[in-house]
């Protein structure tokens, strides 16, 4: 009864290879990736038809939104990826941007003008044609949304946008006032996916609820019920998949039912008992759940989510304990990341190696700088005057205990382990529990020393949303993230990264950025954020997109 457990690891390699710009290296990457996303060949010919039941972590209760431009919730963006197409697509293995709705593009030498040449055979699911005007309308509507809802997520993707013009039905020109080298990658994301004109007649709130979200994707969004789930059905006549897919033409599945299941054990149990086809968790499966999934004949998939790793960001405001770089670096050295990954997520779990996850373009491996070094930590703390009295557990300085506060939303084993690891070098890590709604006031009041934040995007510029006060969701958080000199240096690197359109120059900039973040411990990585998924034995054609979302397009189910 027990099928041999299969586990396909879609382990990504440093996409930074692209930065070196060598075709030979690309070939090397392709070799190395042999077993990862190759179609399952032992399952026979793909079968057309059937309904896929996908169970995921619930939608965002605080911001139910399936509008491409506004949403940031991974589970929402995944659905958008399947009902709306983008101008370009991004290769999950290399990070390379490839044609999709745009067949090719030119970027002016000053990096201010993007010209896209579009396919002429694309239609939206309401029958209207996709043209240069559709792109202009989408970008202009994005600006209108930003006017009404300043700080909407898509904003950072179009930073510096000035205007866009349809030169002819298949040529569109996008003009920037300041260079934005991330924009090309931005055009491959769900945030800049293009909807039909009718969708932009609706208000941003209506688009969030998905009532008018007509796209050109391989599936059609039929209904979104916040808190419950989503129904999608196949788009008849779809014929413009990007080259990154395993097939062309219409999708295989007739329909997809997405159920939101909050309880991890129920989601896994439904998969292993055959009540669902795919289990898609937010937090990685536990080692026990992986064993349970594999024992049932289901397959576990994994891909690191591109963008910042699970980092702790610091409050380095004047007078705060982590304003002292020695203490910050000591915290970083005191974390045993290999033990953390193995204990919390299991022996196969990757160990974080930089401020970015390894699938992020221009990722540089900093494992050596992030090695577990309790002696080094102790020496740095001594140097800053934090001494360990005989018999004491925690270090003190002038009678004050070395206490660091990391507010968390719920008790969890990972933070308890961190607390233990820091205790070993004499740091008292306190973990006050707060409610999500209090986050803003905690930041404004400086009532934290460490705080977690992340956002998924396959471009290192994404970190501006956290650390650059011109784009950050919280200005106060960004401004306190380092001393003013370091903040200025980080912002300069971000700007330089956007100015440089040459990949190897960008690689240099982002290498410097990672060195600075790790060296000064402005970002303290804890673990690699990995998107795991489990597919039942009948499910084939599973494929992660570049941003570790699920593409439903190639999926097919073998018939009973």
């Amino acid at each position: 009864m027990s099928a041999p457990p299969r586990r396909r690891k879609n382990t990504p390699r440093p996409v930074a290879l692209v930065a070196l710009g060598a075709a030979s290296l690309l070939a090397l990457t392709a070799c190395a990736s042999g077993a990862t996303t190759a179609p399952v060949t032992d399952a026979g010919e793909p079968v057309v038809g059937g309904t896929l039941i996908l169970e995921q972590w619930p939608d965002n209760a605080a911001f139910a939104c399936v509008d491409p431009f506004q949403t940031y919730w991974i589970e929402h963006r995944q659905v958008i990826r399947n009902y709306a197409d983008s101008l370009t697509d991004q290769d999950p293995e290399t990070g390379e941007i490839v044609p999709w709705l745009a067949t090719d593009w030119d970027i002016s030498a000053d990096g201010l003008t993007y010209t896209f040449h579009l396919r002429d055979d694309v239609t939206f699911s309401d029958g209207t044609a996709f043209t240069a005007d559709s792109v202009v309308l989408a970008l202009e509507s994005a600006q209108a949304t930003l006017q009404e809802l300043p700080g909407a997520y898509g904003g950072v993707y179009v930073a510096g946008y000035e205007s866009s013009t349809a030169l002819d039905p298949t040529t569109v020109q996008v003009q920037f006032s300041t260079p934005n080298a991330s924009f090309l990658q931005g055009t491959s994301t769900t945030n800049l996916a293009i909807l039909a004109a009718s969708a932009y007649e609706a208000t941003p709130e209506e688009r969030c609820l998905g009532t008018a979200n007509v796209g050109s994707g391989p599936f059609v969004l039929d209904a979104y019920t916040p808190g419950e789930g989503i129904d999608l059905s196949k788009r008849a006549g779809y014929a413009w998949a990007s080259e990154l897919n395993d097939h062309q033409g219409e999708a295989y599945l007739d329909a997809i039912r997405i159920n939101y299941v909050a309880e991890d054990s129920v989601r896994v149990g439904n998969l292993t008992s055959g009540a669902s086809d795919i289990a898609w968790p937010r937090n990685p499966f536990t080692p026990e759940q992986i064993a349970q999934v594999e024992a049932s004949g289901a397959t576990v998939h994994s891909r690191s989510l591109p963008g910042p790793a699970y980092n702790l960001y610091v409050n380095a405001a004047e007078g705060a304990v982590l304003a002292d770089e020695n203490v910050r670096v000591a915290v970083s050295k005191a974390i045993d990341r290999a033990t953390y990954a193995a204990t919390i997520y299991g022996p196969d779990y990757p160990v974080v190696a930089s401020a970015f996850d390894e699938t992020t373009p221009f990722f540089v491996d900093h494992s050596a700088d992030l090695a577990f070094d309790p002696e080094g930590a102790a020496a740095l703390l001594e140097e800053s005057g934090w001494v360990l009295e005989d018999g004491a557990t925690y270090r003190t300085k002038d009678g004050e205990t070395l206490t660091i506060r990391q507010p968390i939303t719920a008790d969890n084993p990972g933070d308890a382990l961190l607390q233990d690891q820091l205790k070993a070098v004499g740091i008292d890590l306190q973990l006050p529990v707060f409610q999500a709604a209090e986050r803003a006031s905690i930041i404004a009041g400086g009532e934290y020393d460490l705080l977690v934040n992340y956002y998924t995007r396959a471009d290192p510029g994404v970190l501006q949303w956290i650390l650059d006060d011109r784009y950050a969701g919280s200005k106060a958080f960004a401004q306190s993230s380092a001393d003013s000199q370091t903040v200025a240096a980080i912002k300069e690197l971000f700007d330089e990264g956007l100015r440089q359109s040459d990949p190897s120059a960008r690689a240099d900039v982002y290498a410097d950025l990672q060195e600075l973040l790790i060296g000064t411990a402005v970002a303290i990585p804890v673990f690699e954020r990995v998107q795991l998924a489990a597919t039942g034995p009948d499910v084939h054609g599973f494929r992660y997109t570049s941003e570790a979302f699920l593409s439903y397009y190639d999926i097919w189910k073998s018939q009973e």
Partner: protein
Amino acid sequence: MTRYVLGRIGQAALVLWAAYTATFAILYLLPSDPVALQLGANNIEVDSLTPEQREAAAARLGLDRPVWEQYLVMLGNALRGDFGVSFAKQVPVSDLLAQRLPGTVTLSVVAVALALVLGVAIAFTATLVPRGAVASLLRRLPAVGVSVPNFWIALLLIQIFAFILGWLPSMGDQGWQSYVLPAITMAIPTSAVLAQVLIRSFDDTLDEPYIATARAKGLTRYDVQVRHAFRNAALPTLTILGLLVGSTVTGSIVVETVFSRNGIGRLAQESVLQQDIPVVQAIVVLAAAAFVVVNLIVDLLYPLLDPRIAHTPKVSRA
């Protein structure tokens, strides 16, 4: 009688107003700012806005007026059944309730009915069977039922009936099957409390002299319990039942989360975490209303069960 009922309805209205006002006060005393909450839903922190943008957002939400004025406006609207618009979900609260309420109400009714049947059956059997191993097992069962956590029962039921046997769905709201496991989960602690109280009342009632008389007439133990003891023993249980119905809202929080049901319990939990004031207020008023109505019904049932309890004025000075 009419005067009594009118008085009780007046009391009920007072309770509802107090619940509404207390929620408003508590939520406004919490250390957070509704404008920040509303934007926080978008993961934008208020400090990233210019003062003008901030004021515009506050005005749009009606949060730029003094607190007492906001209170009076909200109270006035609430009296007309308009609880405003959810901060986080951006839809009218009444729409949210209309969408989420039916599932929770049905589940609660089924669960209470089941709890009543289970509780009475356990108490009845526990006091009917002769003292011994079975009786003491049955008498201890309620203590177990009260002690085991709800979520554990829920996961256990899912494990057995959904994952292993595959008889019933583990989640969602499709057909009567999806009510079975959640209703059992909610009914177990409720029935345990009912059984505990009822066993106690049975024991007391069965010691009464009129029971001895009934026995002396030659009635069987069963007949004595059904015909003579049950009505009297049921009074304290009825009181408890009134209280337990009110607590189904809290019970539904855990159950709806584990069984992935989109009901009022989950809405309450989400809204409290997000400090979504309009939604929390509507739910508190709703729960208070359910509580008040059920207890009013219980009060009115008393004289039917025990004619000695009458709600007429007891003045007879003649």
